[in-house]
């Protein structure tokens, strides 16, 4: 039984990372309908910006700040200079997707060229082991969970209570109508990219603290950004959050019986089961097969 609780705690901390990835990408996708594959690049940029910040002598908190700033600037730049340009040229979703894919590959390999492919750690987190009975975990796990909870609650609060947040929700539910009502949709696309990129940075920093940053984390991050969104249901932030936790738990508890190398396989099985049983995702309210 101790093992079970141990795995649950591991799963919650892992799930917290997936939660952050899911809500950050889910927000961008819901608002802009852009299949933002370059979100993985934002993740790597944040991780390496934080690493660089620390190498230049910054404290861990300053390094994390550098990561956040790097991510937000990168995300805004991609939207402003790439996606917006393509949308103006009436690019199809396919064209935008491929450009985003190109961005991810370019960024990952530039970073690999500059920093090498070995893991770059962030140091200075005061790790303490906490023991309850025979179940041991550390304060980093707790910190991940708390960070995820704060970001989720903050995002939901922002969307429901602030003027900009309400406008974002209007754009999510009906972009054409929002435009008719005088909402500057372009501006809110930019805002969504800003917030989404801001949200992913803490996940990048936490992962870097835990296991170090490598350039190929980009496509790992992007995969675990979509999965919660699809399992949770497109357009639903709480859905993505719940699905992130579910994937984390499933992967972690799965290790009980299966070797840890097959974690991804477990997530994939969860994904396929959800797609078969409830194709719209747990909280999905619409099946988008194009508007009829």
């Amino acid at each position, binding site marked *: 039984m101790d093992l079970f609780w141990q795995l649950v705690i591991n799963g919650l901390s892992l799930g917290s990372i997936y939660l952050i990835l899911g809500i950050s990408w889910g927000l961008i996708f819901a608002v802009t309908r852009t299949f933002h594959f370059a979100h993985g690049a934002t993740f790597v940029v944040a991780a390496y910006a934080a690493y660089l910040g620390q190498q230049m002598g910054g404290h861990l908190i300053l390094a994390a700040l550098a990561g956040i700033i790097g991510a937000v600037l990168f995300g805004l730049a991609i939207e402003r200079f*790439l996606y917006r340009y393509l949308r103006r040229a009436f690019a199809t979703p396919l064209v935008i997707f491929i*450009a985003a894919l190109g961005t991810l*590959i370019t960024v990952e390999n530039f970073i690999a060229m500059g920093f090498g492919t070995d893991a770059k750690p962030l140091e200075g987190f005061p790790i303490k082991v906490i023991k309850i009975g025979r179940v041991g975990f550390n304060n980093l796990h707790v910190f991940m969970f708390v960070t995820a909870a704060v970001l989720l609650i903050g995002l939901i609060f922002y969307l429901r209570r602030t003027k900009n947040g309400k406008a974002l929700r209007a754009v999510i539910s009906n972009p054409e109508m929002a435009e008719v009502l005088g909402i500057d949709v372009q501006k809110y696309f930019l805002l969504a990219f800003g917030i989404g990129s801001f949200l992913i940075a803490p996940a990048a920093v936490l992962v870097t603290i835990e296991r170090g940053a490598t350039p190929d984390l980009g496509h790992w991050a992007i995969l675990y950004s*979509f999965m919660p969104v699809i399992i949770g249901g497109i357009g639903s932030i709480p859905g993505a959050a719940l699905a992130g936790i579910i994937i984390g738990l499933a992967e972690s508890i799965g290790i009980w019986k299966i070797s840890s190398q097959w974690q991804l396989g477990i997530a*994939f099985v969860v994904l396929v089961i959800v*797609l078969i049983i409830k194709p719209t995702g747990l909280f999905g309210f619409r099946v988008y097969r194009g508007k009829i």
Partner: protein
Amino acid sequence: MDYLLHILIMIFIYAILGLSFNLILGYTGLIAMCHAAFFAIGAYTSALLGIHFGTNFLIGILAGMVITGMVSLLVAIPAIRVRDEYLIVTTLALLMIVYTILMNWIDLTRGAAGLSGIPRPSIWGYQISTPFSFVPLLGGFAILCFLICWRIVHSPFGRVLRAIREDEIAAESLGKNVRAFKIWVFVAGGALAAIAGSLFAHYMTYISPANFTINDTILIFAIVIIGGVANAWGPVLGAVILVSVMEALRFLEISPVIVGFTRQIAYGLVLIIFMCFRPHGFLGEFVTAIKRKEEKKINSATNAEKAFSALSQRGKVEELFQFPNGSAKSATILQLAGVSKSFGGLKAVNQCSLDLQTGEIIGLIGPNGAGKTTLFNVITGFYSPDEGSIKFAGKDITNLPAHQITNLGIARSFQDLRLFAHLTVLDNVLVARPRQTGESLVGIFLHFQRVAKEEKENRQKAMAYLEFVGLADRAEELAVNLSYAEQKLLSLARLLATEAQLILLDEPASGLDPKVMEDLFPLVKELVKYGKTICIVEHNMEVIRAMVDEIVFLNAGRIIARGSPEEIMKSPELAEIYFGV
């Protein structure tokens, strides 16, 4: 010399990968990230069979195709069921899982160390081992794959794929099983990629997971994008360019590690730059337009005929709309019983019961938001009703999918037309033709003659429908280049080409100029003589008055009145509802 032959062989292998991926990405518009995984499965299957059982490489290729086909089927079925973004996710996951298996199932795959000692292929006892003898073998396979892809995309099957890429709802409304088409093309693309994998394994004699990472998927993307999306020659050109560049980079005097990164950066930048400035690659889709010259001649012949007004073509009409048993008048063809459909709290259609008789023309009117279009969507299977039942020609169609309903004989037009914008006018109509043998992969490879014969007949029929609406001389134009009125006429021709008995027209008159309406609508009205039944949603009361036998008045999802145009239009209450107070 051997080195140049090696480059040529690599071009063949990547051309096969590009060709197969072009089917999925270019023609159908499906985004799949797992092409490198298909490549890997083909390579490992064939290699393992060769190493452990000494199987002939041809059998290895077949086994690789079968296993890849099954894996792609497993991925495609749940993912394609809903929406295309799901496929990106599941295929990306598949790619990473296959890589994990290759790395970690040490007993089978020997992990990162890879498989070595894969036997060279032999044919009739003749061992193929020098690059010189590999060239004809791989060249032969590349040509075979090219021909297979050529056949697929230039067949009715390929036409449906392009239609799906342009507008899948419209394709569904014309009776095409969109999901099945997507799944089959995905499986076919995967199986062809497996051929490249097997050949690669037997040529290299050593494979490792490093050959099959996401970077290879990106390379295949780049091959298709650079060469030309949805162009049969595009992937060949792309493979020539990228493989040459890849090999040329080796001669630069930098460390191999840096070369690897540079290459990836180059691919990435190429993708971005092409998407920004030349999204269709070097060879766009429409380079193929040259081959259509011959058909132009047929058109100029019909041009003269077009000088007649559409009205003078009664004979043509009879030929197009023969109805086998014209006697069925007054049989109930469509029967709605208590049909309801809600969206959230809104009852868009509320307890509608309605009978349509064969040969009737019914006008469906009501204020905006009354549920007219929703009712169309429910009848044609795009929405399934929450309650009630729908019967067509005595058959319960309540929960049938849209494409089956169309094939039974109900077709509908769309307010926003939903033409296949980047297909020619003629292809738009051809897609709509029912029961084409050439729309199955089995058909196009086993029944050459039947497909050719049907295609010829369908072309004639399609041209006749275009003449009927007066668009015959625009047959080779892309639909997107037509004026709005012409597009409207094309959507009507496409609808009629389905040969459906019950035709649902959603605002056919809006956007047409009065002259065209005067010419066309009497003809449409005549269709009932040939056993058609027509239901029209229209706001133009002139058109309604001129066309319909009876009006059904819909308000807030309910049918509140039914009667002759005179009765309905006289009623002050209805006028009040219709025009508002």
